[in-house]
Every structure is written in C-alpha cells, then in structure tokens.
C-alpha cells in the first residue's frame, strides 16, 4: 500500500508542478488552474496523511485504503471533466455568436461601401 501511496504522491506533485508552470507560462488562465490545484493538493494530502484516508475509507464503507483513494481520485476528475465541459460549451456558444455577428457586420459594412460607390 505504501508503494501505491508513494506513486499517487508523485503523480499529485507532478500535477501541481505542471499546473503552476502552465499558469506561469499563461497556458492556463489562473481561474481554471485553481480547480486543478485543489484536486492535486487533496490527493497529495490523502496520500501522505494516512489517518485521514483511513477515516474517509470507513465513511465510504470500503475494505481498503487504495480503493478509497482510487474512488475519490476518480470522482474528483469526473467532476473536473464535467466542469470543463460546461465551460467549453459556454465558450463554443459565445464563439458561434461572435462569428455570426462578425459575418453580419462585415456583410453590412460591405453593403454600405457598395452603396457609397
């Protein structure tokens, strides 16, 4: 079990570093990085604080801690995926509305120019 928790510790640290570097390089906007940082931090804490993981395992009613960690981690990433699907959907709607508006404005501008000529 210790080896598994070491692996999840390493993964969460890599994730934390990746997110921080991405924010620094402006590859991720800070408002979208917070969710990732919290998720990675939570997995790191659960991997290192065995008492907390054991408490959660008992609350969930699972027989062993690695399974509890896997379940919690999976749940966190499913929720994250859903949140980003919502964000992407909103951006796509805005993008379509902007593209349509741009096309209509260009069309009307061209019509005005033709009228002037």
């Amino acid at each position: 079990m210790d080896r598994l928790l070491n692996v999840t510790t390493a993964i969460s640290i890599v994730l934390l570093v990746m997110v921080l570097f991405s924010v620094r390089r402006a590859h991720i906007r800070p408002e979208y990085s917070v969710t990732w940082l919290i998720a990675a931090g939570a997995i790191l804490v659960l991997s290192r604080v065995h008492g907390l993981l054991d408490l959660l395992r008992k609350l969930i009613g699972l027989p062993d801690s690695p399974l509890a960690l896997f379940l919690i981690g999976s749940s966190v990433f499913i929720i994250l995926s859903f949140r980003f699907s919502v964000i992407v959907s909103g951006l796509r709607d805005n993008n379509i509305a902007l593209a349509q508006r741009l096309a209509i404005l260009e069309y009307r501008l061209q019509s005005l120019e033709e009228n002037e000529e």
Partner: protein
Amino acid sequence: VIRAEGPDSLLVIVPAFNEEGAVGHVVAGVRQWVPQAGILVIDDCSSDATIEVARAAGAGILPLPHHLGLGGCVQAGYKLAWETGFQFVIRVDGDGQHDPRDIPLILDKLKTSGCEMVIGSRFLTPNGSRTGAARSLGILFFRAVLRPILGKAVHDPTSGFVGVNRRALSVFKSSFPLEYPEIEALVVLQRKRFRFEEVSVRMHPRLAGRSTITALTSFYYIVHVLLGVFVNVLKYERRWHRPAPGSSRSGSGPGAGA
C-alpha cells in the same frame, strides 16, 4: 446589396459548404423562379470556390469567419434576415437537392396559412422523390417520436427545404439548434406554440459533394437529435398549464393550433 422591400419581402438563404459544383445552379434556379426574392449564400468557410461561383451567379454572400456547421450557418442567415426586416425566409440547400420551382408553393402557404413554418415534404404525396432505405427508416423513427410531441403528424421531419415567417425568425435568431437543426427546430417552435404546415415538393439527388450524414455518423445523429428533442421538451413550460385567459392561441396541448 439585399434589401427587404414591401410587406411580403422574401429572402432565400442558401447554406453552403464546399458546394462550388452546385451552388451556381441553385442560385440561378432561385433567380428564375422567385426573381423578386433576395438571395443570400451563407458560406460556412468553404475551401473551394463556393463564394466566387455564388457571387458570379448574382447572390449576396455572407462569409462566416470559420466553420460553424449547418445550424450555425442557417442561424446566421436568420439573424441577418431579422435585422434587415425580411418578412419571410426560405432555406434552400446549396447542394441542388431542393427544386427552386417549389419555392412559390412554400411562400404561398406561409402567406395564406399564417403558420410560422412551412416544410417542403417529399412524402406528403407521391412525387417521385427517392430516399435511401436507412434514411427512410430514420425518418419513420423520428415521425413516430415527434407525433406525440407536436400533436400532429410530420411527414418529412428531416427536410431542410423550409420556409419561416418573421414570428419564427424572432425565435430562431436567439434559439436555434446548431447541429442537425431540422427536427429540433420543430420542437423549438412547438415550445412557443407556433404552427407548421407541409407542402409537397420535389427533391433531387445532390448535384455535387457528399452528405454530412454518413453510415458512421448516423448513430451519433440519432442520439444527438433525440437528446435535443428531449431537452427541448423539458423546456416546454406551458405544456403542463392551461393557456392564459384571452390568449390568442387556441388549443390545450403541445399540438395546439397545428
């Protein structure tokens, strides 16, 4: 320059994506059969000469800055028609499947019936239009799905040969399905208690290009459209309520007035 002139101003919109082989023929046909109409080709960021061919044929061009898909393309035309004051809009696909000779039929029905949408239907009366077996099955399936939702039969729910009036434009300019819009658009209108009618039209094999719905995407199409219909039915708030006293719309169910 396209202008809305007169109380019965008509705009024919032609959504087109890589239709250089057919769009010129389509525009010429529309000009021949409804010379009084404005013709607007909405180019969904084609990589071929669609814009040049359509412009040479005499159409106005609304070039989208990037590919939006059929629904986004059609909605852009609806928005422009709304903003420029057109009373009626008829959509004719840029692949040559729709026969421009039938545009006056759709326009007449829009004017005389007062309904918000008129669908050009292949199946209302036998007229020689041919459809593949898989597509026919899909149409039968969606007919059965839509019948209880719309409160009346729709014979050709996947037809894109559709005319709408200004009341429908007022809805579609802000709420229009972005992928595979034909079936969902009917449910969107039904939410507003608007009416539709069908007229019998001819349809031909496409002059050039390929359909966006292939065997591989058919399953995605069915799931996507079913989900869209379901979501729109959930939004249909007044479905469960009686019409307000003095309401101008008659009827008590989702098919009211249809």
